[in-house]
């Protein structure tokens, strides 16, 4: 809950760091500058209140840099919901038209391609470095507010930690905090040390929360992204979809059959939609992952650092496996879990480049609950917020693969008594469970004299007469400018 409150304050900024020290092995400053671009994005935000409309046009700008052959790297949030993208280079009057080739919203990175190959004349792919030392100096390059031309700021590495990535709202990865000046308009810019890229500037705090705090995406995350797309598809981060609990307590250790060696972490829940379902169950003890011993607080030692055991999946790809030694009912076992990603999480994440799905029937607008919908509406019904928050931890998805909300009522004589149902969550239509938008569309397409919609809770049923809906359909469409009565596909562009 706390996290949610802090996240909106995170101000995504493009930062541009000037590299003062002379380069040793990496690229020269002149070449670096020529390999950067200002990205201008004309974006269209989907309209969840009137989902049949095309949405609100806006825009923004950020920084990108050449990372490979005909490839520009930037932040995903710079190019989200893009309808038209242009690139400008220092000292080149031309605007180049670009397109998004890959967007990884869970780690806020994207790859653009440019139609006109002339763009790459005089540029070099910037060299990728490693994780910079704490307190070492870094330079941030980019196009922040306060001027038109390239800007460079300098600071030191403050700390390296797992942090939430604000763009998707649910993901956390390794992230490096620097104290270089960060300003809006600079996201996606490279952070350099000794002529090599050591990070991608991507977010910070707004000035009234904290000063001189900026974050960059470190190179391991960038490399993982580049490797993931090698096969032409971005598969996203993998997740074990389990939670674990420490075994520090002596009684706990005794009950689980553990000796006094400070090893092993208890599995406290296993998501039934996750990859470990069928492999692990609550009460199992994980003793090692991929041969690395797991301590009683759930950490493993990796690259001279203690990290949470569950984060070992961070470094893996779809189809990879994780090997675990476990203790089940005091019996040692070994399991090998193939990795993929659990689907229910996407409902809780910000989503981009999709068109809102909905069904409009008798002036009643039904939409599936998602973070996008939640942030567009001011829902008062506490049940909606509760089910959103507990969708994954309480496995609400087993009963309700989607939570279909009656989000609004377009007033018409046929629905004048139906306002009380606003914000209700559909349970069934004509006694058939209706727990996805497709269920809803199917139920309304079946002929019936009455459509009786029941909602979660103890209220009365909503009753619509088919004849009334049919007679009102054209009236509602023309009165409210409804272009389509339904959209069932998110990717219907």
């Amino acid at each position: 809950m706390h996290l949610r409150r802090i996240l909106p304050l995170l101000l995504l900024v493009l930062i541009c760091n000037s590299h003062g020290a002379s380069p040793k092995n990496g690229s020269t400053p002149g070449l670096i500058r020529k390999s950067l671009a200002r990205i201008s994005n004309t974006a269209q935000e989907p309209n969840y209140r009137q989902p049949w409309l095309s949405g609100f046009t806006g825009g923004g700008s950020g920084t990108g840099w050449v990372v490979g052959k005909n490839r520009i790297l930037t932040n995903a949030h710079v190019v989200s919901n893009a309808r038209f993208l242009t690139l400008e280079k220092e000292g080149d009057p031309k605007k180049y038209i670009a397109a998004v080739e890959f967007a990884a919203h869970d780690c806020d990175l994207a790859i653009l391609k440019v139609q006109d190959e002339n763009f790459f004349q005089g540029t070099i792919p910037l060299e990728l470095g490693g994780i910079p030392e704490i307190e070492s100096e870094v330079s941030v390059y980019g196009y922040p507010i306060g001027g038109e031309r390239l800007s460079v700021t300098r600071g030191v590495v403050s700390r390296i930690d797992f942090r939430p990535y604000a763009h998707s709202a649910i993901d956390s990865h390794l992230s490096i905090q620097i104290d270089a000046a960060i300003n809006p308009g600079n996201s996606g810019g490279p952070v350099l040390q000794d002529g090599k890229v050591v990070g991608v500037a991507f977010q910070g705090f707004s000035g009234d929360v904290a000063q001189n705090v900026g974050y960059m995406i470190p190179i391991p995350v960038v490399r993982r992204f580049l490797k993931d797309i090698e096969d032409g598809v971005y598969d996203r981060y993998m997740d074990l979809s389990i939670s674990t609990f420490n075994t520090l307590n002596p009684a706990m250790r005794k009950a689980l059959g553990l000796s006094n060696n400070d090893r092993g972490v208890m599995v406290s829940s296993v998501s039934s939609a996750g990859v470990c379902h069928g492999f692990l169950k609550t009460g199992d003890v994980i003793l090692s992952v991929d041969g690395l011993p797991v301590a009683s607080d759930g950490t493993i030692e990796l690259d001279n650092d203690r990290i949470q055991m569950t984060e070992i999946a961070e470094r893996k790809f779809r189809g990879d496996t994780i090997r675990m030694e476990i203790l089940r009912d005091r019996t040692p076992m070994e399991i090998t879990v193939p990795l993929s990603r659990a689907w229910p999480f996407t409902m809780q994440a910000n989503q981009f480049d999709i068109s809102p799905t909905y069904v409009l029937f008798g002036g009643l607008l039904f939409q599936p609950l998602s973070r996008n919908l939640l942030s567009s509406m001011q829902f008062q019904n506490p049940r909606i917020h509760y089910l959103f928050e507990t969708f994954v931890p309480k496995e609400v998805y087993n009963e309700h693969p989607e939570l279909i909300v009656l989000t609004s009522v377009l007033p018409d004589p046929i629905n004048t008594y139906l306002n009380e149902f606003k914000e209700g969550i559909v349970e069934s239509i004509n006694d058939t469970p209706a727990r996805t938008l497709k269920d809803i569309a199917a139920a309304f397409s079946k002929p019936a004299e009455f459509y009786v919609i029941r909602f979660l809770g103890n209220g009365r049923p909503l009753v619509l007469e088919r004849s009334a809906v049919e007679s009102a359909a054209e009236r509602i469409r023309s009165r409210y400018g409804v272009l389509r009565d339904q959209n069932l596909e998110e990717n219907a562009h």
Partner: protein
Amino acid sequence: MRNSLHLIGFIGFWTLAPLHLFSAPSASTSPSTHFAAAPNVVRVAVTSQAYDFSRPWSKRAPISKRALGVVLQGQRVLVTAECVANATYVELETPDGESKQAASVEAVDYEANLALLKPDNSEFLQGQTGLPIASASANDTLSIWQLEPNGKLMVSKGQMTTAEVTRYPIDESAFLIYRVSVPLQMRDASATLPVVKDGKLAGLMLRYEASSNLLDVIPAPVVQHFLKDAKGDAYKGFPRMGLAFSGTRDPQLRRYLGLNGTKGGVLVTQTLPDGPAAFADIQKGDVLLEIDGQAIDADGNYADPDYGTISLGHLVCTKHFENEAIPLKVFRSGKLENKTLTLARRRPEQFLSEPYIFDRAPGYFILGGFVLQELSRPYLKEFGSEWSRKAPMDLLNLDRTQSEIPKGGKKRIVFLSRVLPSDVTVGYEDLRHQVVTSINDHPLSSLSDIPEALKKAVGGIHKVELSGDPHQVFLDAEAVEKIGPSLMRAYRLPALSRLQ
């Protein structure tokens, strides 16, 4: 040193002298002269001390409240229940302020927000005839009585605009109110004020909104119901039907329900298990057309002889008493059926999460440092004025949706509210607000089940099962026993448990 000593002696003389002079003769005058300026009212001073539900072993600091009570026939004093909630000491004071008398609460109804006080010495109210009670109706001029600091009666007059059924301070209770439009200047920080019509008590102030000058009054019919009930052996309270309903104005709904030929009626959307409606074979989906011979309209109102169109809640709760049987006419699958419903009150302890707890210490059980409690609305309200957003999500949801939870013999929801860290709870320090489903596989339906469950430890270890992550934790049974006294010392606990 010398100076200050002198000064103290000097002041002492002056403050003591007048008190001595005036109080001696007043003891010999007849009690009724104390009421000369304002008959039939007494000041009520209440000291109350609420329990701290987030630290259930301790009470909060005492606070004082003042009220203007009404003397009724039989030498009892009527005040609002709010003002005597969690009272530790109640004192009555004559309008002139010269005589005081301790009193005790004889009957209290927190739902109807009424309490009846009895002075410990019956001579205190001698000579006071007591105000009779009379109903009022819209357009009547009502007087709101207050006392000036000097003991004089201050009367403000206002017009009663309406009577309606609306919410009372306890969540989920709704009764009749009179609404009066009157500008009031509040004197004496009084929590209860009498509202009078032609020298008769029309009700007590329920709440006053200064911005709109609207005064809500606990009306005579509610007061009379309370008083009549309080005369009996055991106070029973205001009964209910044990059902929820919804209006039927929507013509599409009416056609679907087959109500074409009928007028009015409300749709039963829920009946409480073991409630009066369920016993009377009222079912979800029935349409209630008549209650006690009164036709119910599509909004759930009936035509009251005194107040006109008003919610059926008044008819059921206030015009009837517990155990009275009332005839109902319901419409079920196309047919009219007659039912008889025996009214009963839903007592707070019948809720899974008690809606209010006053005058009673909350239970708790400390298990090696785990603080186990029973979920209640007062616990959630410890999270402040925005409790409905700030209290723990899972507990709030259980409280909010408790009527949807199949009861299955469960009396209470036992939860771990926090951990008082000790040697026994290493690793568990961060657990909080977790529902405890069982201990040693013994399901918990209330705190009272814990001692029995603790006898079932296997291998000297207690298994505590939680409804959320981490789902199970373990405690060493022997260590739990041993740590008790040092926990009491370290956290200054008066006892390790309080079970009802």
